[in-house]
Each structure stands twice: as C-alpha cells, then as structure tokens.
C-alpha cells in the first residue's frame, strides 16, 4: 500500500464558496450575498493564492505537476473569468500543469458568456460542467434554480465554440418530479449532445431549507423505488444515445470524455483542495528525509472569513484531519473503486469468496468479469452498491 509518490497522479481542487442564491436542497459550503459578511471575492482569491504557497512548502521533494484541476463550489463562475484565470495561474506557478492536464470548472448556465468561456479556454481550461439539473420548469422551481432552460443550450453552444468539452449535471428524484418529467430532462440533455452527463439522486439533508419543508410535511420525498426507476431510465436512454456509464452517477461518450479529476477521487489518487472547507488527500509516501508518512485526509475551515483570516496571519487553514491506516485504505478502496465500471481487482477482497459468489448469484456482480479477476457491478448492483460494499468489505 505504501506506493511511491510518483505512482499516483496529483490533482488540485479549488473550492469557490459563492452563489447568487442558495438553493433549498443545497448543503454545500457556499454563501449567497447577504449570507456572508466580511468575505469578499477579492479577499478569497488572495487567500487561495496564499494557501497554494503554503501547499508547496508542505510537499517537499514532490515534483509532480497537476494532471487535473477542478473548480467547484458554489458557483465558480460567480468569479470573473480573470479571477479564475489568476487562480489557475497560481496552480501553474505552484505545482505546474502537465501538458495534457484536464482543467474543469463548474458553471451555472446563467453565469457564463461566450466571451468568458473563450477567455477561460485561452487560459488553459479544457472542460465546463454546467449545472442544468432539469429541463422541466416546475422541477427547477422546486429546486430554486433560477436559470432559464433556454440558457443551457446557449451555454453549451458557447462552450463548444470555445473548444471546451461539455458536461451536463442533472438531479433526479426532486419532490413532485414524475418519471415522465425525468424522461423529458434526459431527452433534452441527449438532444444537446454533451460529451459527458452526471445524474445524481436528490438527497434531502436535514439542515437545509428543503429538509425543513420535508419535516413540516410541505414536500413529499420521492419514493426510493421511483428513484431506482429513474436511474434505470437514465441508464437506458443514455446507453441508447451512445453514452456508457463509467461511475455509478456518470456517463461519457468516449473513454477520453470521462472526468479524469473525478476518477482520481474514486481511484484514491492524491489531490490538494484549495479554499474554504476544501478537502485534501495525500496517500502514504516517504518524506525526503526517509520517514514514512501515512495516508492523510484533511479539510479546511469552512467559513470564507475564517479561512482568509487564518491565511492572512500566515497560519494554516486546516480545520481537522485524519491519518488512515492500511485497513482504512483498503476499506476506502473497496468503497470507492467498486463504483467505477473498471471495478476492483479481486485481490482487494481476500478471503471473501463466499460473499462474492452470493453477490454474483444475486445479480449484483458481473460473474464473467469476476472469473477474470475483476469485480464489477451490474446495473442492479450499481443501485445496490452500498449493500455490495458492505457484503465485500466485512
């Protein structure tokens, strides 16, 4: 498990904690104007660049350039493209960018223009992931999404024009969304011919506005069986349209269209998360002085003001962290990699032949692949992936 540093890819995640409004279902670390006092976007960029300086010093002897960069949020495009470019330049200066680097930003269809997308592409961005969520007005309203559905097509065309690859993000299982609403959204997506599609089941978290509505009985949660129907419909329609799944919630046209940054998470590669509340992971490695450093995850303080304040004082923005022992790592690998279409090598699951056999018999694992030494989920298995992980991991 103590792989040399060079054996793992390195990526950078940049968390941009700003949105124009907070959506009712959202529990991410983001702030709409008025929610955040004393944290400006300018202050944020400055602080993020400071964190990069610290990061470089914290990775002595590590010469890896970033192979993937991902700007997520929040809505990264709430920042001017010049600010995003300044941050990407910061990454270049800190770690370097490999020649074939994948550089993605999430974007709200309303917050991009032809000009801004062109500027991003010229600066080295290669990919844009548009938060479309749904093509059905009443579903968008329930989700508090303000964008005009027509803007999605415009944004897709502008991104194409700028030479960027395009991913469209969808949410299914919104309260009040019918199977035919969902079909309409899928068909709209397919018609726009993106390179990549993500479809996430809506999870209503307790601390959110929608969570409160649920508690008060104002919205009805979607039956998990309906969500399963929706997933199966998505997989059927997307497959028919030439997309194949490569991760439980992600489909791509060609292997080259897959989101490499996302894949790095599932494959337990290394990444540095820059920004308030961002998480980082560095696998086990040897320090230049020869000492073995165990795998570690850590995360930054959440509030942009606290984040900026810490960095302004020259301190680390880290809030908390944990070291992972080999058993933790093994559990994580099973849990994360099993979600990928490439599956996991059977060696990861030693001594669980009976569990594997049961999962094959129950139709959760692909039997033929298992005979060849790889454990891959079937479609039924993808929907019951957590159950399969529990059966395999312990």
């Amino acid at each position: 498990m103590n792989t040399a540093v060079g054996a793992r890819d390195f990526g950078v995640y940049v968390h941009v904690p700003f949105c124009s409004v907070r959506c009712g279902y959202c529990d991410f670390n983001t702030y709409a104007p008025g929610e955040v006092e004393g944290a400006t976007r300018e202050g944020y960029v400055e602080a993020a660049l400071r964190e990069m300086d610290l990061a470089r010093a914290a990775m002595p002897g590590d010469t890896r350039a970033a192979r993937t960069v991902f700007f997520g949020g929040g809505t990264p495009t709430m920042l001017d493209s010049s600010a995003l470019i300044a941050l990407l330049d910061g990454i270049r200066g800190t770690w370097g960018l490999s020649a074939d680097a994948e550089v993605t930003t999430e974007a709200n269809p309303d917050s991009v223009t032809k000009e801004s997308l062109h500027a991003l592409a010229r600066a080295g961005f290669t990919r844009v992931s548009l938060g479309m969520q749904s093509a059905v007005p009443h579903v968008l309203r329930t989700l508090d999404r303000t964008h005009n559905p027509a803007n999605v097509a415009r944004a897709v065309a502008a991104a194409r024009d700028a030479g960027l690859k395009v991913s469209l993000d969808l949410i299914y299982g919104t309260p009040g969304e019918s199977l035919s609403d969902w079909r309409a959204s899928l068909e709209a997506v397919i018609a726009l011919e993106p390179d990549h599609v993500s479809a996430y089941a809506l999870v209503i978290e307790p601390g959110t506005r929608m969570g409160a509505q649920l508690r008060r009985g104002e919205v009805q949660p979607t039956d998990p069986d309906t969500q399963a129907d929706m997933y199966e419909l998505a997989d059927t329609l997307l497959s028919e349209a030439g997309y194949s799944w490569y991760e439980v919630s992600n489909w791509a046209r060609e292997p080259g269209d897959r989101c490499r940054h996302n894949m790095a998470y599932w494959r337990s590669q290394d990444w540095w998360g820059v920004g308030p509340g961002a998480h980082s992971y560095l696998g086990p490695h040897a320090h230049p002085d020869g000492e073995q450093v165990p795998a570690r995850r850590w995360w930054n303080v959440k509030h942009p003001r606290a984040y900026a304040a810490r960095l302004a004082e020259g301190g680390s923005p880290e809030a908390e962290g944990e070291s992972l022992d080999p058993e933790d790592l093994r559990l994580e690998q099973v849990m994360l990699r099993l979600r990928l279409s490439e599956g996991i090598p059977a060696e990861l699951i030693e001594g669980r032949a009976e569990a594997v056999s049961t999962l094959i018999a129950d139709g959760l694992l692909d039997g033929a692949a298992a005979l060849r030494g790889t454990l891959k989920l079937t479609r039924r298995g993808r929907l019951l992936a957590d159950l399969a992980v529990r059966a395999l991991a312990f």
Partner: protein
Amino acid sequence: MRARAAAVPPDFVGEYPAPTSTNRGTVITVSADPRIEPASTQPALIRNFCIIAHIDHGKSTLADRMLQLTGVVEPRQMKAQYLDRMDIERERGITIKSQAVRMPWSVDGAPHALNMIDTPGHVDFTYEVSRSLAACEGAILLVDAAQGIEAQTLANLYLAMENDLTIIPVLNKIDLPSADPDRYAAELAQLIGCEVEDVLRVSGKTGAGVPELLDRVVRDIPAPVGDADAPTRAMIFDSVYDTYRGVVTYVRVVDGSLKPREKIAMMSTLATHDLLEIGVISPEPVPTKGLGVGEVGYLITGVKDVRQSKVGDTVTLAGRRAEQSLGGYRDPKPMVYSGLFPLDGSDFPILRDALDKLQLNDASLVYEPESSVALGFGFRCGYLGLLHLEIVRDRLEREFGLDLISTAPNVVYEVQMEDGKVHTVTNPSEFPGGKIHEVREPVVKASILVPSEFIGTVMELCQERRGVMGTMNYLSETRVEMHYTLPLAEVVFDFFDQLKSRTRGYGSLDYEPAGDQVADLVKVDILLQGEQVDAFSAVVHKDKAYSYGLSMVGKLKDLIDRQQFEVPIQAAVGSRIIARETIRAIRKDVLAKCYGGDISRKRKLLEKQKAGKKRMKNIGSVEVPPEAFIAALSTSDDGSDKGKKK
C-alpha cells in the same frame, strides 16, 4: 457511651440536616455497652423490625436517617441509601436483597439493640418478604403522605399481620408540599384498626419525627422470645454471595445460640458446614462471639453457592440437632420463563459462566441450555416474575458486558394429549402439535388498588385479559381494592404497564399464584420467508390468535429493513395462515455522490454499519434486528418502547 449529638459533627454540611430533636435517647456503638453486646444481649433488650413500603415511598432514605441518628454511620461516610448495595438497586430505587443492620438506641436510659431487617418491596419477591417478616416481631408500615398505600404494600401488610407482627403506621415525606397526611392517616388507621393519632408523621429527608419513631419501635414492638437452652434453631432469611467471602447467610436465632468454629447443619439437606465467622452488621460486618436468642446476624461457612444456604431453611448444630425445623421453607418456583441468547454467538460461554455466577447469589434463578434455530445457543431461564427477569438481564449486561436478546416471557403450560400423555411446556416452540385433550395454564389472584374513578377502566382491562372479578373493597371514599383471578400469562404480558398507563400511574398491582385452569389456548407461529422462527412462537388464547398474529407481522414489517428480496411474513396456527405482510425488496442503496469530504464521512458510516450488521440475526437470508425480538414483549404499536435497555 457518647451523646447522640456527636453523631452529627458541627462541621457537617451535607444534605442530611441535623435531627430536629436532641433531648431524647443516647447513642451506643455496637459493643460500647456490655448490656447489648452481641451474643450476650438479653432478648428483652432486642427489637427486630422491618419496614414495609412501596418503591419510592422513601424506605431507604428513612433507613439512612436511622443509621445516622443511631450513630452507626458517620454523616461524612453516608452514602445515600446505604442499605441498597448494588448499582442496579440504587438506579431503580428498589431493594432486591434484604440485609439486617444492628443499631443501638436508648430509651429511658436503657440501651436497646434494634435490628432493622430490610425487605424487598416487589411482588416478585413475596417469598423473600415472608421470610424477612418471619424474622421480626414488628414492622414499620411506611406510606408516602402524598400517595397513600399501594397494592404491594397492602399485600405485605397482610403478610405481616398474618405473622402477628406489631405494626407501627408511619406517613413519610410530610415535608412535601403535596403531602396530605390527614387523609392518608385516616386511611391507614382504618386499614390496621388504630387511632388516627397513632399514625406517626416523619420525613426521612429532613429527619423530622425519626427519633420518635425509634422510640416507638422500642416501646411498641415486643422483644423476641425463645429457649436459650433448647437445641439451636436459626432461620435463614437471606443469603448473598460475596466474591471474597463466599456465601454470607443472614439468620435470626430463635432458640439456643451459635458460636464461631461450631459445626452447623442445614435442616432441609442435613449438610454440615464449619462456622468460619459469625457476626452482626452495623452497618459493615463485625465479627462477634456469637449470636443468642432473638439476635440477628450473619454466618460465613466458606460455602460458594447460595443454593447450599437456602432462604427459609433452619440452621442447627451438627452435634446437637433440633428435632423440628422452623417451617415455612419452600423451594422457589419459577413463574415465568424466557430465552436468553447472546447477540454474538461466540459469547455463549461467557453467558454460561455469568449465569453460574449469578446463581451463586440468586437461588431462585433457574436455567438450562436451549438452542434456537433463529437465535443459536442460549439458555431458557426461569424467573420469579418479570421484574426478576429484567434484573437478571440487566445484571448480565452490566456486570458481564453481554449484549443479550431475551425472548417474550411465557408461563408454564400443562398440555394433556388425547392419548393421555402430559407435556410440561416452558417454551412455546415446544408446544406439541397433534391431538390435544386440554391445556392448563397458571392463574393468579390479583389485587388492584385504584382511585375509584378508574374502576371502569380496570374492569375493561381485566376483561380484555380474561380476568374473573372477585370482590371489591373501598379503602376510603376515593380508593378501592379490586380482586381478580387472571391467567398469569396475561399478567406477564405488559399488564402492569397497561394498568399504569390507563390509570395515569395511580393503579397498583399485587398478585399471588392461585393454581391453574383449563383454557382454550393455541400456538401462533411466525414465518419469515416461509421459515418458522421459533423465537417468535407464542401460546395465546384462541380468540386472540388472529389479533396477535396481525400485530406481530405488522410490527416485524416495520422493524425489519428491506432486504434484497421480497420477504413474506406470516402468522400461522398449525398449518393455517392467519395473517400476512410483505416486506418489499430494496432496489436502491447507494449514495449518489461522494465528494472529497464525503469520503471520510462515508467510510465512518460504513464502519458504523459494520457494527450494526454484527448485531443482526440472520434467519435464513433475512437480517433481523434484535429490536424485532423485543417487539414481542409489548402490545404497543411501535413495539420499541418496552424491553429496551434502560
């Protein structure tokens, strides 16, 4: 000799205030006055008494106050409720094992030795109560001045009066704002036939009235009588196991005397033991030169098992045996059975050792190995009653770190087949099939005390539980005592909880075995995916089989998580299905997203699920949570409020 005032040093600032009266009585330590030296105290100076009280009526607090007033416990060492030793007892506020404390108290300049014998207060331990009463000449009837007498107290009062004990009626907690001493004094006076003025009013909390009560004990309760020259006879009224000393046996000497190093004999078995130590409790064990007529103390013989020193048995001398035992001895008979299974099958040996150890201290606990298809290896245990069951399970979990599943309690059935064969059924899963001539079930005589506004409610409850009404007495204008004959099975099945909730907590219950009766009973089986789950089988009245089956399958449907496959749950009588529910197959169990930050969270969730999975019992391919087994213990709809731990 020292003044009692010294018992409360001037620097005392604890929660126990100084006594309100200081001009009466003096305190003598156990051996300070030769006149009340153990082994040589004249019976005339001895008073043996117990306190009859309901749980929460303040017996332990009053006992604490007496220990403090008589100087046997220094205030600074005062542990609240000194007499209740076990943690469980302290938490539940009840006394399981009785003990006897010797306290000095002077009246009119004459020192006396008071032996306070602590009695258990719950219906399950009636036999132990009766033995404790038999060791006394008098009893303090202690009643909460805000609540009045309860059914169990009334039951113990009857026992005490049957034993010709002198009763000193006392109202406690007179310091409470809600106390209504005039009303309850009248009730007590009417019950025992005394004047209202004879009812003492005390507060165990403040100490008010307690010195007067001690004086009354000396004045009113007769001194013990016995023949000092006759062959020794001492009655065992309690027997507890101590890790370091082995069995500690509490006795009351009736005739003759006991001295250290003598060889004693148990009259029920004629087994002999060497008397290694003899002494009195004051309030810690103090070895003495012996025990004479009327005295109360403890014996240590090196025996390791309380079954060799049984409550109710008579101790005599091996060299000079008494002819006749004191009588009243009987083997405890389990009334309620239930299966105990370790959640983790590999804990079985620990459970076995734990039960062996508990039995050293609890002669009424019986058990034998049982194997269940659903729950694996465990024990079928017999208890005196439901409280006894709960206490045993609590102690096993707490003192031995075990996680246990206990199956629904059941009573013992006699099943006579048409071919004349008779089966004694202590486990519903062993209820025979085939042609049954008749089934007999145990019944109890129950006495229920309630405010008169709840008469209708109680009648309704008892009717639902197949009760037959007997007489009804008014204790006062507003309180009645109702007598019912009820099947024991109906009483052990959450009857008390129902009584409490339907009478807003006012109802109290006491019951005693009253033989058995023929009843129309059937066995209801529960099937999961067509497989019978032995642990869910129950014997119920024919008229209730359908509603029982329906409620069980409904509860299980809610308690068992959806599985990969559809799981039918059925209730059946014989081969006839009487109720059915289906747990739909789960189709989706996957987190849609997994951000960097979610990875730690998800891994932790997985580790938690791992622990959860370990708790599950696999029945066929169905994972059943332990809560499902507890559900059978309750008639309530959610099934989760009863039987859960603490």
